[in-house]
């Protein structure tokens, strides 16, 4: 059942290309806007790069989440999921996982290129990718709660940002912190472990919150 829903979601995202191309393009453009606006030297650029890349990834992930439950809500598929004799939390997890496999992974894959553009040392690119790999999945899980809560509200765009951005803070701190440490030639494994811990926390708790939020939204 999990695999069936997962596959269906992948197929749907694949056919709605704008859903993952737009956040990815947004990510690349926002990151490249900062150097243009700040006109920093190579040293300053290296200092601010982790923060820029991470904040942009966070916003791109938020942007992509709005569509997560929207179309299922509008065409009634969400109702049918609720009525299945199958835990709604697992349905939610399958949807988020499929969504992340497309949007989160594409951000991860694009990030080294942006890291080089922002003068990050090549050693820290690995940490950048790893931190985004762990971090964006947590962001997707946490953000899905907000998406599920606001799906019934027609225009949830800004509200979801207000609800979810504060919850993104820990992931941002450890994610950008890891890249920052490694850019200074220090060991970042401590921060990465924290990201992994946050991911496990989100993975175990978020599906239940998502299920409860979907039920409330459908009422």
């Amino acid at each position, binding site marked *: *059942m999990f695999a*069936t*829903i997962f596959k*269906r979601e992948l*197929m*749907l995202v694949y*056919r*709605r290309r704008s859903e993952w191309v737009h956040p990815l393009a947004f990510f690349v453009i926002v990151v490249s806007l900062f150097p243009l606006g700040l006109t920093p030297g190579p040293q300053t650029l290296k200092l601010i790069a982790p923060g820029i890349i991470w904040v942009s990834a966070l916003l791109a992930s938020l942007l992509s989440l709005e569509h997560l439950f929207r*179309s299922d809500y*509008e*065409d*009634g*598929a969400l*109702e*049918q999921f*609720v*009525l*299945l*004799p*199958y835990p709604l939390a697992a349905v939610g997890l399958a949807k988020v996982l499929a969504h992340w496999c497309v949007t989160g992974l594409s951000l991860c894959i694009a990030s080294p290129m942006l890291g080089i553009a922002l003068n990050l040392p090549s050693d820290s690119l690995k940490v950048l990718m790893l931190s985004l790999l762990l971090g964006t999945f947590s962001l997707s899980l946490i953000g899905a709660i907000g998406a599920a809560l606001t799906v019934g509200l027609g225009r949830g765009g800004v509200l979801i940002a207000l609800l979810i951005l504060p919850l993104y803070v820990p992931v941002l701190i450890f994610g950008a912190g890891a890249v920052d440490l490694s850019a200074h030639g220090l060991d970042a494994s401590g921060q990465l472990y924290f990201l992994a811990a946050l991911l496990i926390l989100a993975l175990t708790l978020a599906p239940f919150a998502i299920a409860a939020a979907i039920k409330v939204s*459908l*009422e």
Partner: protein
Amino acid sequence: MVPIETDDVSGKPCLQVDNLSCVRGDRLLFKDVNFKLHRGELVHVAGPNGSGKTTLLRIVCNLTWPESGQALWRGEPINRSERFQRESAYIGHQDGLKSELSTLENLRFHSRVLNADVRRLPTIVQQLELNRCQYLLAGKLSAGQRRRAALARLLLAERVLWILDEPFTALDRNGRQVVENLLEQHLENRGLVLLTSHQAFMSTHLTNHRRELSLS
């Protein structure tokens, strides 16, 4: 088609709704709605627009909560009955089809999640006369074709209780005939039907066998 359970020889109603009341905002939609549904019966919920027909159906399938009262399935409250989820099927206003998938892909997905036999799909497609549009994207279907595809889920699911919200909207005369035949067959197989509809049935069998529940 519908599995006959051994425990309903007792004559007890399968679905029992007790004193259901519902408030939306500060408006009372309906109060003290009572009805019982035995095997082989059809209840037709009637009432003007905005009288709470859809809400009543959504309460009965546990998508919304009532202000007071409860619905029981084989004696258990529906919100705690796993059996209810395995034995009921709901088709609402929205059809639950993904526009980006073809009709057949949609139905195949539904048959997988409903644990239905995929081999029955061609027959069901034939029965609902969907052959001509089975490879079209669901987004390109007409409203009537979408409705037929949504109703195909009922046949896939093989559930005892059908809860249908306006199943005839957008269907042509021929489509209505097909759906009414399905309903007749379902009742003959001792299935239960709870539906809302603004139109009268064309079939005399259904007209004679329906019970009306009027919300005002």
